[in-house]
């Protein structure tokens, strides 16, 4: 497995994705929550100075809100990735180069995960820094801890989302079908969880898992649910990669 190959594949896919209007739009949508949160943070600070405590953490809210647009972007980038290569019969073309099925899979996964991590981490850290600068009760250690939490949450979320989207893409030859498969990957496990545990059950789908992980990391509540959420995201990421590698391995042949 070569890091050079993985990077080359990821970079090319991101470049191609950013040429599409839908992805450009989703990217712009992803910039809205950080801007809004920055404004809210300033309002929050002003309210405190006026003697009101809004008890509302903009960092947690940012990540909770940002999870939605990031998921949409992951779907926009990830669902056509493998389906297009399968439809165009270019998987054997990769096999004629020093590219393994796992290099290919990780390259595609990185193409989804990297923008997702960037769109969660960069605004998250900026808000954390802004919060430290504006609110006196936050010290450097607090801010570093927050940045670490942002990084952990973003990595798990990006890995889980990319697993769902790239794995769905490997299952079909059409992006729209991949989108449908990805939707099922969110809907079915969510429904199963509700049937087994009711409304307060453990998260089996990547969407709920991200919510539980964020709540556990930033609110400090329901740690057990957060751990299950992190595990769930890790499993979705691994499952997606495994499905993709297995499919690609089979089709990387003349």
């Amino acid at each position, binding site marked *: 497995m070569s890091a*050079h190959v993985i990077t080359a594949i990821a970079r*090319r896919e991101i*470049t191609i994705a950013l040429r599409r209007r839908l992805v450009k739009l989703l990217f712009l949508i992803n910039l809205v929550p950080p801007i809004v949160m920055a404004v809210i943070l300033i309002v929050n600070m002003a309210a405190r100075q006026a003697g009101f405590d809004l008890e509302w953490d903009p960092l947690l809210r940012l990540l909770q809100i940002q999870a939605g647009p990031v998921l949409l972007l992951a779907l926009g980038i990830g669902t056509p990735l493998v389906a*297009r290569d399968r439809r165009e019969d270019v998987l054997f073309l990769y096999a*004629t*180069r020093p590219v393994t099925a796992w290099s290919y899979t990780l390259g595609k996964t990185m193409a989804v995960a990297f923008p997702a991590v960037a769109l969660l981490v960069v605004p998250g850290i900026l808000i954390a820094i802004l919060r430290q600068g504006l609110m006196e009760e936050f010290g450097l250690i607090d801010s570093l801890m927050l940045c670490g939490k942002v990084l952990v949450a973003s990595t798990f979320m990006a890995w889980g989302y990319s697993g769902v989207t790239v794995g769905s893409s490997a299952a079909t030859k059409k992006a729209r079908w991949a989108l449908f498969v990805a939707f099922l990957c969110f809907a079915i496990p969510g429904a199963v969880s509700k049937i087994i545990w009711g409304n307060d059950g453990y998260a089996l789908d990547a969407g709920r898992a991200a919510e539980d992980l964020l709540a556990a990391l930033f609110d400090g509540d329901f740690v057990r649910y957060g751990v299950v959420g992190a595990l769930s995201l890790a499993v979705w990421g691994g499952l997606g990669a495994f499905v993709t590698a297995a499919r690609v391995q089979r089709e990387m*042949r003349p």
Partner: protein
Amino acid sequence: MNETWIRIDNVRLSRGGRLVLEGITSELSGRAIGLVGANGAGKSTLIGALLGVLKVDSGSIRVLDLELPHMAMEVRARAGVMAEQAGVFPGGSGVDAVAFAGMLSGLSRREALRKAHRALDALDVGEERYRPVRGFSTGMRQRCKLAMSLVHDPEILILDEPTVGLDPAGRTQFLNLIRDLRDEGRRILVSTHIMQDADFLCDDILLLESGSVAYSGSINALVDTDVGMVVASGEGLDAAFAEALGQYGYSIRNQDGERIAFEPNDDRELHRFWQLAAERGAEVRLLGRELRSLEDAVVHAMKKARGGTVEH
């Protein structure tokens, strides 16, 4: 240049429970080798095995003295492959696709882009290189595929049906391009079922028939070693002469006016022909072996190889 660069030793390969290659043994050393056979003969499968993509059941393969499949990545890094069934990397322009192919072979981004332009220049691809690949004509697509296989300066080129889908003018131009590459010193393996292409490009051929080797060696030897037909022309070589010749045991292939083509039982025994010509007062102006085309020689070799081969 004449060192052996492909060694295949008693290779047997099955796919999906079906035996596709059986007992393939060959040592190939020509500058350009034709991998020839009918559709379904096992050409693409053998290419897959030569790249280490398909694992053999038994036997061994060495390419550039590298053992497969253990050294498959090394072989793929040193080979440029133009695959018939695979297209061009989708989603970008021609030059993007060629540069990406270079990056997958280990070139840096800048180097890949520079070499992509150089490869496309060498193949006479102009401003079209900046157009999206989905709008390419077959000819442009083939050039782009060839550029993708050349971008990293490979030691060997493996071309699978390179002229399929091209019009006659495009085909000639493309064959000339490949021959230029051969003359520059690259070692080339061309898989084709078009004998004219193999004849034009190759020194040696590996002829596959139903998954087995029907012939392996130089094209000249294949064309020359077969008995072939004898052609005679002159006065008196009419239908009656042909009939009489047939009674001597010669098989008559064609009789047309004053020209007769026949296959003697023994290449060296033509005295009966001369005897008959003397008896009937025929005036023979020309007698010689008809040089067969590669296509005829291949068909003959395939017929000889049939029987006891792999089922398809």
